[in-house]
């Protein structure tokens, strides 16, 4: 499998720390976004991102290139973030309840005014933040990290049908929230 980062990875596996620093630069936004979306706290996400890369550095000799590097890295990230989230459960503002899907609200939008696309987008992105965790995670992996349905399913060890169902339920909830915002 051809990976655009394969040359950097090979250098890292030979102990080249400069190559690892470059690898970090290439992937840090994706990893940090994932950490932030799970932990919902910038400080925790910052610490967790460093921890993820430390683990990746230690585990890099075992990377065989059977999957894309980003997939392998995000798997480390998800496991680490979900473990940390379990430890911090009482302290983080994390939405888990399914009824949050039904009661998702976006700010009221003035139907008389011309809708500016990026304001509407920002309202929807804010609504994603209020989705239950499992829907946020699939949205993050599928849309932000640009993974395929199959990759998301493998990453989360869930059936393909479940991933599609989660995404569709999230889309329905967001469409309902948009309607509620328009209608007031």
């Amino acid at each position, binding site marked *: 499998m051809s990976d655009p980062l394969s040359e950097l990875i090979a250098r890292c*596996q030979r102990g080249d720390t400069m190559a690892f*620093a470059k690898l*970090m630069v290439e992937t840090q936004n994706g990893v940090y976004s994932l950490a932030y979306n799970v932990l919902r706290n910038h400080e925790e*996400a910052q610490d967790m*991102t*460093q921890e993820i*890369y430390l683990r990746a550095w230690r585990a890099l000799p075992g990377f065989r290139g059977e999957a894309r590097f980003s997939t392998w890295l995000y798997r480390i990230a998800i496991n680490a973030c979900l473990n940390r989230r379990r430890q911090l459960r009482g302290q983080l503002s994390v939405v888990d309840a399914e009824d949050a899907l039904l009661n998702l609200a976006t700010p009221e939008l003035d139907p008389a005014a011309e809708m500016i696309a990026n304001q509407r987008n920002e309202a*929807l992105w804010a609504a994603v933040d209020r989705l239950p965790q499992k829907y946020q995670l699939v949205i993050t992996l599928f849309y932000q990290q640009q993974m395929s349905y199959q990759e998301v399913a493998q990453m989360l060890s869930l059936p393909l049908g479940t991933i599609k169902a989660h995404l569709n339920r999230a*889309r329905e909830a967001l469409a309902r929230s*948009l309607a509620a915002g328009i209608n007031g």
Partner: protein
Amino acid sequence: MLGCRQVGRDLPQYIADGEPELACHDALRAHLALCPHCRAYAERLHIVERALQSYPLVSPNPQIVTLTMRRISAQEQAAQEEWRLLPWDVWVPAVAFFLAIVVAMMCLPPNLLPAVPLTDLERTVIIESAPIPLGLQMNTDLFWALWLGLSVIAAGLGLSLGLSHWNAANSKSLGRLETHVTDAATKLWDYARRTH
């Protein structure tokens, strides 16, 4: 003809897939052409899909690469300063070779040794010839010769591996395994010192 409920269930995936022009979606398209409620829903799903397609990544602190590389350097430094056993690719074959020598010494027929009075300890260490307890028909000397041969072969292979060329990745993996074992041994040693 599909109803609104069925169309409502199928629309999110249909819109996300980019409204594929497939025959299986003809009924859905026919319904959308006639139902303003479902058309409005489809339009909202389009807006949602466009928003999600442009969902931005969150950027970390610009110093995160520097901070992480410092931690990696500190970790590598700490690993090198720890008390280390001899490299595995030296002491494993060395132990195997030593064991082979011990087995060989124990297999020497007693009448080959010079007539030197033995201490009580030496008498207890020498293995007396005896039939194999498992009832094998094999001759005892042949058994010990085979065992000695296997031990020497294993030791030779270990030495060859130890002296052969290893690439950096193998050494690094072995080094990490060695570090874990060293950590465990150090912890056990500290525990033993504290408790005794």
